[in-house]
């Protein structure tokens, strides 16, 4: 049955009325013809537009937990030493420094005439204050480990002392730091965001909110922070170092990768880090294909094997797994052009990178032989815990297929981030998991020691539960050895000693692919992100374009 047709006139009136309402709404929403204009780049060549994937934590050295936190903190503050673009140590607030031959006492001479962004002068006591603050149990800093090698730091951390015995300021321009025992990489720790120097006045004034009102001696001053929206920095006219070439930095918080890409293509962002989904697109893009930069990261991605849990406690089994997986084939499929095959833990370019170590070649029949020798001719079953989303699942499935051919039945357990870290941390005990490790400082120690020293708990890096007395001794020696050449030899020996035991199936050292706008000049990716103070980069009209 067909319902009777209503009068046309009625519905037309309704349609007109509704259309009018819609127009009013859209008009209110600002789509009025007079306000219609381009959303793209305003071509202000003095302001840098960057994007952050998530909101940084407070800009407080005591709270610097992520790489992003560190990158923002190093814009506002300065350290005694800092990293240059290649990750080498250079002087920052210190004009020079020396260390006693026993490696215990460091003396730093400060640059004269340095001023905080609030106008007060920097003195040695401010450095002592900043370091003490990181170790103060009342501050509860997550980064106390960076400085806990200083003499008396542990007592102070535990609330058993009123000050840190190893921190002294004999005169306004001299800082003396005494260590409990030699720590050859200590200068590198001083370049970390946690060791940045804060203004004591600001710390007293703002207390727990210091991170939202940061006062340092760095090249940039935080001028705006709209939660979830953006952070804006202005050039610090009193900066003691090379002044920045730009006037302003604006970092917008854009969590979604597709949105970041759209903003970049609209000309609203200067650089874009590419991922699995858009690397090909930009490699073929006529405007951008010549603007791609390949950047090796100081990081390693690996399949971690639990050396304390059968059957993986058997070194033959672990070696078999290494031989069973065709890592190059997997990576060529998953990350073509954006990886360096890893045979160990230390990335190329660092002193300990062991180029003579051959690694484990892909050899499925050898893998089966080794499994049979270990007493598993028919293979076994094990779990691989991975973090949901991102690259892990693309790696895990081919690994599963490869291992199946050797008779190892891999169960992939996919967990959300927090659950993942709980599962692979101290309370969990997974057979294996996919992990990555990013360097805090450019030193092989930053890989070898946290990842393989037997006394480090899984949460501190030793997720493989690796324990080997020879490796432990070598790692302790690396801490003591002050001669860089001998130290590099020790690092190489340690790396080899570790990987002969095959605690991991090392996968790759990531290579980032970054694309930048044609207007960007003098820009590069720093091997340690927190070393980049954004002073060398500038923008100018691209040649031939309006």
């Amino acid at each position, binding site marked *: 049955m067909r*319902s009777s*047709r209503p009068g046309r*006139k*009625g*519905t037309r*009136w309704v*349609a007109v009325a*509704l259309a009018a309402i*819609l127009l009013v*709404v*859209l008009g*209110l*929403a*600002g*789509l009025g013809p007079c*306000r*219609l*204009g381009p*959303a793209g780049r305003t071509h202000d060549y003095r302001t840098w537009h960057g994007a952050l994937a*998530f*909101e940084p*934590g*407070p800009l407080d050295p005591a709270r610097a*937990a*992520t790489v992003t936190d560190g990158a923002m903190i190093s814009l506002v503050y300065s350290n005694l030493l800092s990293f240059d673009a290649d990750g080498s140590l250079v002087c920052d607030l210190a004009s020079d420094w020396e260390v006693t031959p026993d490696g215990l006492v460091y003396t730093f001479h400060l640059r004269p005439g340095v001023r905080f962004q609030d106008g007060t002068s920097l003195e040695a006591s401010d450095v002592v204050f900043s370091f003490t603050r990181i170790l103060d*149990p009342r501050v*509860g*800093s*997550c980064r*106390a*480990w960076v400085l*806990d090698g200083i003499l008396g730091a542990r007592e102070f*951390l535990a609330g058993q002392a009123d000050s840190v015995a190893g921190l002294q300021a004999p005169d306004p321009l001299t800082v003396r730091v005494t260590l409990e025992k030699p720590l050859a990489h200590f200068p590198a720790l001083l370049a970390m965001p946690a060791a940045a120097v804060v203004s004591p006045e600001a710390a007293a004034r703002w207390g727990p909110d210091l*991170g*939202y009102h940061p006062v340092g001696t760095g090249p940039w001053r935080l001028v705006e922070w709209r*939660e*979830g929206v953006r952070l804006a920095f202005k050039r610090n006219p009193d900066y003691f170092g090379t002044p920045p070439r730009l006037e302003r930095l604006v970092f*917008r*918080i*854009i*969590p*979604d990768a*597709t*949105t970041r890409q*759209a*903003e970049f*293509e*609209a000309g609203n962002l200067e650089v874009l880090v590419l991922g699995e989904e858009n690397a090909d697109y930009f490699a073929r893009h006529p405007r951008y294909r010549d603007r791609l930069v390949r950047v090796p990261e100081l990081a390693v991605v690996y399949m971690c094997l639990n050396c304390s849990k059968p059957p993986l406690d058997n070194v033959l089994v672990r070696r078999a797994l290494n031989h069973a997986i065709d890592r190059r084939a997997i990576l060529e499929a998953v990350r073509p052009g954006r990886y360096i095959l890893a045979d160990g833990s230390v990335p190329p370019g660092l002193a300990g990178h062991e180029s003579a170590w051959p690694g484990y070649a892909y050899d499925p029949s050898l893998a089966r032989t080794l499994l049979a020798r270990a007493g598993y001719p028919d293979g076994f079953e094990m779990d691989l815990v991975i973090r949901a989303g991102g690259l892990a699942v693309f790696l895990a499935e081919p690994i599963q297929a490869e291992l199946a051919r050797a008779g190892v039945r891999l169960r992939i357990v996919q967990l*959300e*981030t*927090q*659950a993942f*870290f*709980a599962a692979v*941390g101290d*309370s969990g005990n997974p057979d294996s998991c996919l992990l990555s490790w990013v360097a805090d400082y450019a030193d092989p120690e930053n890989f070898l020691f*946290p990842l393989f020293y037997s006394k480090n708990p899984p*949460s*501190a*890096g030793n997720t493989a539960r690796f324990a080997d007395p020879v490796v432990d001794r070598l790692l302790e020696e690396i801490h003591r050895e002050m001669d860089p050449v001998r130290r590099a030899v020790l690092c190489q020996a340690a790396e080899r000693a570790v990987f002969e035991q095959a605690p991991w199936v090392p996968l790759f050292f990531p290579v980032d692919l970054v694309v930048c706008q044609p207007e960007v000049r003098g820009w590069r990716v720093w091997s340690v992100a927190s070393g980049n103070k954004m002073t060398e980069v500038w923008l100018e009209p691209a040649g031939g374009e309006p």
Partner: protein
Amino acid sequence: MVGLVLRRLLAAVPVLLAVTVLTFALLHLVPGDPVKALVGERASPETIANVRRELGLDLPLHQQYLRWLGRVLRGDLGRSWLTGRKVSESLASRLPVTLRLALTAFAVSVVVGLSVGVWAALRQNTVADHLVRVALLLAASVPVFVVATGAMYVFGVRLRLVPVSGVGDGSFRHFVLPGTVLGLYLSVYQARMTRSVMLETIRQDYVRTARAKGLPEMVVLWKHAFRNALLTVVTLLGGSLSNLLVGSTLTETLFNLPGIGRFTVDAAYARDLPAVMGAFLFQAVVFVGANLVVDMVYSLVDPRVRVG
């Protein structure tokens, strides 16, 4: 009316309490240690113990909850573990974003949804009706991120009619695209519902009577049919409005609008207890409030409710 409001407000108290207890319990049931996430790698056991004590996580669960509740009753939602910001300030800074998005989307959805629904109902079983129904089905089946990304590229990147994403200076310009996408999405459901409700009403005896009386078709449709259909539609609209007001996470994330939805999801991922509790409490209040408003509107539209 006052009685109704009072009764509803009283009934809301146990609802809100239950929501907070459940949220609190759930947060402690899911795996993952918030402290580990806060302190990062390589933190010493002393540091972890210090942070745990500072956050009150060393207390028994019921004491932790009561402590939180006590603070809330004094108007203090606490500080986010992750950012150290006051949760109330974070919510306040995000509310305008969600509000603007919600109102734009709601306006678009009501205008489009109701008109398309009525229009299709009056043409039941014609080619136009079939086309509209198929189109609505298709539209409802496309994931919002596909539509959102497409719209962003076409209107933001290529045509440059609107900003690509973000809130910019907070002007409404930035809400046109996300509001329209989200609104059109909602309008699909509203159109389908309006169409079926209208079809039902049109067949009622009182509509036939009205026609038999010789009333003009306009009056029959709007005074007799549409007004009665509105009852069901208003309930539906109330539901979608309260859904919009607690934040549309996906749209907020894609269009980079830092609203309540994104705040809640970020907090949940980080196991940021004060932030999650604050966000859920806020959402529960909005939900209860929106339902109350719907009931009040209902009683305006339908005199029978007013009497009862």
